[in-house]
């Protein structure tokens, strides 16, 4: 973004006050007004409606269906009850899918861009070939790859064309997985939170910010206290508490401190110390998430163990997804590489860098903003992904299913519109948690630099 942008920004304000006629400013507002109104209705109105539905018990197709307010029960169910089993599996799938999809697209796209940057003959042709999958719909891609990844045909029999032995890789049909158990997730989250908090603590101590260090150590102590108190006395049938239970004291105290922390994070944000705010905020969010799902002793209604993990079948959807979108990353990396002045590379070469080092040490770091924005675009595609999975394995194949598919099925096949809305809201929150920090950072950096 650089210097020029900030200069432009400041200049806008200046001429805004002197030269511009008020008539022109009115035009500017009128031009953007329709878009604002349309988006207010189509985006925020509809999100609002979906959010309201997610707080009700709406299921069924009555013309004037009763929608009773039931608070956050649908969300609770998604994280703790049997009804959320599928959702939890899909969350894990989405996590791994996003991780490998992003990595795959960025790495393949970068390699292609570097290769095409070598003054290749027929660059245009190669570029079109690599970019073309991007022009297809996921539905067509899905149907085709479903075919190609059939264990008894397609890619597996390709070696036979050359007289070699067929492969027997199972692709989508592979049900094996590297798993962990959902029951273990809360302690895992807590441990992660504590590790992060400890990290924050050490930073503060090293910087001699003792007050902040005390701040950070309080939740650690509390969490530990709470875990100890609850786990020592917890058993699965122990659900009833009196009006005031000694066991709840740590919860009340930590709730108070969480509010304190929230204020602290806001304070940090207002002071422009975003990284610190993030460091403090993330464990807080994790902690709240854990709390919302019941804390230690949550998940009382799970009927059996829930082993989740990276399903090997995901590779079967990762291949087509990377095939389809790596062309896009190639295109923007290529654009980025072309935008870097030749002088910089020359200087690096003079300093004794090999050609490969020029790319990894000079160019790649300079492409960081491009990598970030590509990751955002790809990330929101992968969190929302629906058509590809739907076309490849239909609606109910859990090893590769994702929340997008479940929203569709829950709403329109099970008629559970409220639960479907809750899943959609979770999807939106997931997407938002990726997007909002990015938007905030990129807009901020425009103003700052």
């Amino acid at each position, binding site marked *: 973004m650089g210097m020029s942008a900030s200069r432009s920004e400041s200049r806008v304000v200046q001429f805004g006050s002197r030269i511009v006629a008020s008539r022109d400013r009115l035009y500017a507002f009128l031009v953007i007004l329709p878009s604002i109104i349309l988006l207010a209705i189509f985006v925020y109105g509809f999100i609002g409606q979906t959010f309201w539905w997610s707080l009700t018990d709406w299921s069924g*197709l009555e*013309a004037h269906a009763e929608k009773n307010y039931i608070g956050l029960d649908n969300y609770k169910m998604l994280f703790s009850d049997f009804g959320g089993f599928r959702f939890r599996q899909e969350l894990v799938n989405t996590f791994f899918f996003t991780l490998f999809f992003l990595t795959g697209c960025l790495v393949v796209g970068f390699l292609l861009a570097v290769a095409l940057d070598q003054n290749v003959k027929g660059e245009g042709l190669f570029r079109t070939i690599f970019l073309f999958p991007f022009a297809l719909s996921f539905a067509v891609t899905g149907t085709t790859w479903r075919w190609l990844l059939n264990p008894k045909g397609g890619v597996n029999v390709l070696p036979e064309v050359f007289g070699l032995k067929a492969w027997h890789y199972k692709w989508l049909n592979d049900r094996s997985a590297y798993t962990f158990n959902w029951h273990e997730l809360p302690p895992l989250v807590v441990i992660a939170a504590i590790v992060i908090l400890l990290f924050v603590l050490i930073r503060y101590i090293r910087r001699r910010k003792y007050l902040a260090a005390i701040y950070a150590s309080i939740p650690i102590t509390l969490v530990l206290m709470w875990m100890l108190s609850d786990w020592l006395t917890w058993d699965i049938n122990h659900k009833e508490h009196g009006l005031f239970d000694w066991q709840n004291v740590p919860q009340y105290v930590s709730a108070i401190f969480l509010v304190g922390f929230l204020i602290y994070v806001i304070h940090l944000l207002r002071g422009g110390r975003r990284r610190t705010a993030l460091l403090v905020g993330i464990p807080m969010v994790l902690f709240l998430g854990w709390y919302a799902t019941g804390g230690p002793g949550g998940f009382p209604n799970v009927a059996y163990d829930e082993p989740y993990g990276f399903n090997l079948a995901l590779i079967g959807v990762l291949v087509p997804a990377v095939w389809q979108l790596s062309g896009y990353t190639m295109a923007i990396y290529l654009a980025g590489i072309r935008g870097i002045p030749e002088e910089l590379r020359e200087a690096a070469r003079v300093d004794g860098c090999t050609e490969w080092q020029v790319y990894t040490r000079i160019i790649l770091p300079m492409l960081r903003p491009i990598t970030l924005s590509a990751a955002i675009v790809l990330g929101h595609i992968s969190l929302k992904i629906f058509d590809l999975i*739907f076309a490849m*394995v239909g609606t*109910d194949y859990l090893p590769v299913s994702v929340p997008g598919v479940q929203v569709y099925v829950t709403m329109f096949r*099970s*008629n559970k519109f409220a639960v479907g809305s809750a899943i959609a809201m979770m999807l939106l929150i997931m997407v938002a948690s990726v997007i909002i920090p990015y938007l905030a950072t990129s807009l901020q950096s425009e103003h700052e630099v």
Partner: protein
Amino acid sequence: MSKRLVTLAIAAVLVLVTVAPTFAQDGLSGELEIFSWWAGDEGPALEALIAKYNEMYPDVTVENATVTGGSGVNARAVLKTRMLGGDPPDAFQVHAGQELIGTWVVAERMEDLTFLYEEEGWMDKFPQGLLDLLSADGGIWSVPVNIHRSNVMWYVPAKLEELGIEAPATWDDFLAVCPTIQEAGLVPLAVAENWTVNHLWESVALAELGVDGWNSLWTGEKAWTDDDVVAMWDKFGQILDCSNIDVDAATLSWQQATDMVINGDAVFNVMGDWAAGYMATTLGLEPGVGFGWAAAPGTAGVFMMLSDSFGLPKDIKNRDNSLAWLKLLGSQEGQDIFNPLKGSIAGRLDSDLSLYNAYLQSAAADWQSNVVVGSLAHGAVAPESFSSEFGTVMEIFLGSRSGIAAANASQAIANQAGIGK
């Protein structure tokens, strides 16, 4: 700019000219929108019916709104969105039974058709078991177009001879011949994507629990966690071990599973009798020679049925046209136009069997003599909130291969769906 205005003006005039009113000659006029998920191989049967309707009511413009994909999920999404948005189609396809009752009748979206049945004298033309499936709250809510059978096992007679085996009478018999077939390097039982596994499951459950056991699952008299249900799940697991479930099932369509049997890669396949239509019409095989069939093991004498039906939604634009469509659907003529093409049998007891092929004639005979039960995988016995989430139960079973886990999970969704309450 002025040229553009002129163009616009000309266009406007042209439009006005074309809007000249058409006069109804006699009977019905206007439009009729028929909503279904019948396309591809199933399209011609519907189109034949529409052609007949056009012949009877030439002034009615029929709009064939077909939505496909995702095993009918797309169609449901569009239909339900339209219903909630206050724009119901004039007639829509729905599985007879709980999919009709639990979703649409309960929501008070349908008109009671008892008067139509009485007017047309259909009360004794359809078997009582079928009428029961269409009835609730003292009304009859849709007109069944066809009957399919779910519990059929398909094979190639020549292949069985070659292997020296017979179509198994029970699942234990099947498990007994399974090693023989596997040693020959073949897949004993071909399955395909998720829903076909549910489809297989219902035949296994029917066989292992018996007719009473099966029916009492849906009334809530029998718990999903009963010992015999758990044992049934475990047996289902053994049966799956004789299939291609862990090889390539998830990405096969049901036709590809049928192809495996026809090509000789697999020996048996349990699929609804639309498979007969596929083998006879698309693959051009002769029933009884190119392919053979038997009731799924342990279910001889029981006809597990599913039926497509059309109802009369409330608040539609063309009620009279829709009623005329329903009359055609329920008539002997309409049913005998549709079913031979669709590869199903008529719900009516008086259809002209000479129009049907060998398989369908045998199915029609069974339909009249067998005990009739409803299908789970195709919307007859359980409300959509259960049948939809049964897919997840199946995935839990396939992932864990634990009968108890599957039993607990299905009990959980049965409780949620309010089965037996």
